[in-house]
């Protein structure tokens, strides 16, 4: 049957295969196709798939539209002053978002300080030092950290991490690093420090998996060349691998930062939720994401709601910029154009 059909069309044997890009689906219905509306069906199908793709653009458009229109009232009422005023007083309808901006930035930086060396260390171990049999399980286990929901991190932090900080870590820091004036006040356990640590645990897998990815993208010859020059293993990793992958590693770090900035639940559960700016890391704080999570469904007036949406808009803009930057940095490495190694 098949042979007959092919024979009828003068099929004589193997034909030269054109380049993949040039291949087009048959424009004429062959005897095997469902003759008739396949052309129409093709068009309908591609239109449907196009619509699906378009919906992604539509979603981003909707997000921007919703945030901009709903925050307009607050923007008109407070203007740019909104982000430099530290007075958040819903009762008197006075809204200044500075404490949240401060809390978001400080908790994220604290998280980066802890997570960056750990994430890079883990990636270096897995790609360059680990015995082959341990590589898979280790990669899987660190990825598992990324799969734990935020609310479970929060739960664990409330009942395990916070008491630990309150009893041991914070008194220790206050005693030995008190001179920096960053560890003043009573050790509640709950506060900026707890938020920074839980965020660090959450972003380590992001940093380490991206770092792993870009380190794997560094050609093997690069390592062999440096080793052949008589370097030790660490010298090989430093000059041959890390230096070549640094743009991508920076991208991973910024991606982690993006996650830390927008992280909501775990932070809300341990940061203390008090709109104050304090130099001490032991003091409670508040972040942009947390204030939305806590107060959005209780916002009674339109201005209050609008102010919260404006906080959301600011958070959205910052995370978008951070993510785009990270994306571009990672692409420079994984797309086969390594950063120059002569820095």
């Amino acid at each position, binding site marked *: 049957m098949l042979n007959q059909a092919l024979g009828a069309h003068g099929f004589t044997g193997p034909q030269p295969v054109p380049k993949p890009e040039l291949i087009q689906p048959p424009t004429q219905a062959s005897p095997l*196709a469902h003759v008739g509306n396949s052309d129409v069906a093709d068009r309908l199908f591609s239109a449907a*798939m196009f619509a699906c793709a378009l919906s992604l653009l539509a979603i981003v458009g909707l*997000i921007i539209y919703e945030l901009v229109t709903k925050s307009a009232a607050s923007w008109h009422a407070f203007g740019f002053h909104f982000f430099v005023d530290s007075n958040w007083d819903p009762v008197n309808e006075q809204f200044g978002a500075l404490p949240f901006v401060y809390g978001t930035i400080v908790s994220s930086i604290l998280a980066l300080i802890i997570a960056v060396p750990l994430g890079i*260390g883990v990636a270096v171990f897995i790609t360059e030092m680990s015995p082959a049999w341990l590589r898979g399980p280790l990669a899987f286990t660190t990825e598992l950290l990324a799969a734990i929901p935020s609310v479970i991190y929060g739960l664990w932090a409330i009942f395990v991490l916070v008491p630990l900080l309150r009893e041991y870590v914070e008194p220790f820091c206050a005693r030995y690093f008190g001179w920096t004036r960053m560890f003043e006040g009573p050790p509640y356990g709950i506060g900026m420090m707890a938020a920074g640590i839980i965020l660090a645990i959450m972003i380590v897998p992001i940093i380490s998996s991206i770092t792993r990815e870009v380190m794997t993208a560094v050609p093997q010859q690069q390592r062999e060349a440096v080793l052949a020059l008589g370097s030790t293993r660490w010298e090989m990793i430093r000059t041959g691998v890390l230096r070549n992958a640094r743009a991508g590693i920076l991208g991973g770090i910024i991606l982690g930062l993006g996650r830390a900035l927008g992280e909501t639940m775990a932070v809300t559960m341990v940061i203390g939720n008090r709109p104050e700016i304090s130099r001490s890391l032991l003091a409670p704080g508040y972040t942009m994401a947390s204030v939305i999570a806590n107060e959005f469904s209780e916002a009674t007036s339109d201005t209050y709601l609008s102010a919260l*949406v404006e906080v959301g808009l600011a958070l959205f803009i910052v995370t978008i910029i951070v993510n785009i930057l990270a994306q571009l940095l990672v692409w420079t490495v994984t797309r086969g154009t390594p950063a120059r190694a002569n820095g």
Partner: protein
Amino acid sequence: MAELLSTEFETAKISLWRRITDSFATVAAVGAVVIVLLPLAAIFGYLVYKGIGSINLAFLTQIPKPPGEEGGGMANAIAGSMLILALASVVGVPVGIGAGIYLAEYGRNRFGDVIRFTADVLNGVPSIIVGIVAYGLVVLSQGHFSAIAGGVALAIMMIPTITRTTEEMLLLVPTAVREAAYGLGVSRWRTTLSITLRTATSGVITGVMLAFARVAGETAPLLFTTLGNQYWNWKIGQPTAALPLQIFAYAISPYDEEHKQAWAGALILIVLIVASVAAVRYVTSRGMLKGAN
């Protein structure tokens, strides 16, 4: 490179300082692994240790008791989560796969790049922002909180992940497979659905499961969309309990009994998520493209 060239290669012995640095680097890397694995072990350890004792038949079949009272369970929250996730999947999975098909089969152009970029950007949007948008779109227009609003929020979060993995998996299917179908006169849409997508099925399912696992534990976008509920609810237009919401509410409550329930709920949630991640791992380790060979 300069410092490398200046070292003396003739001497077989590596200087003490370089050996110390090398060992130190190894110790530091191992130390980093240990420090990262510690909280992981602690979290899973505590979940099992605290959670297992509170999981019983009542927990799985009853609705919450009033605060401070013994007993009760999270049955309505588990069911509510299932309802919300089902709603999210009904919307998110077809759209995500469709967009993935577009990118892989039609999107090798400028517009495709724009969509790819949009998907990556959308992936980085904080979940709380998605909650605000779902609130504005669904809750405000309906006039009340509902399961469907939560479903919409989670669907928005699922779509970019599914889109990108579907595209990736479809691109793994050799062009020859498509050409074979075209050569037999099969139309393009039929080829895409019955040959290409079919071949990449297990990979596409992997992407869907990953997206599912990612949103299953999301709390922030549900806070002001589904709101939570102390009772059973099966109507998609009504406020609904959800497992992550219930864990959050109990974790910050002052009652010991509720803390226990929070741990038990967290254990159930993590088992659900780890099971789907492990299933994904199992499927992918057996080869993405079994049909292609």
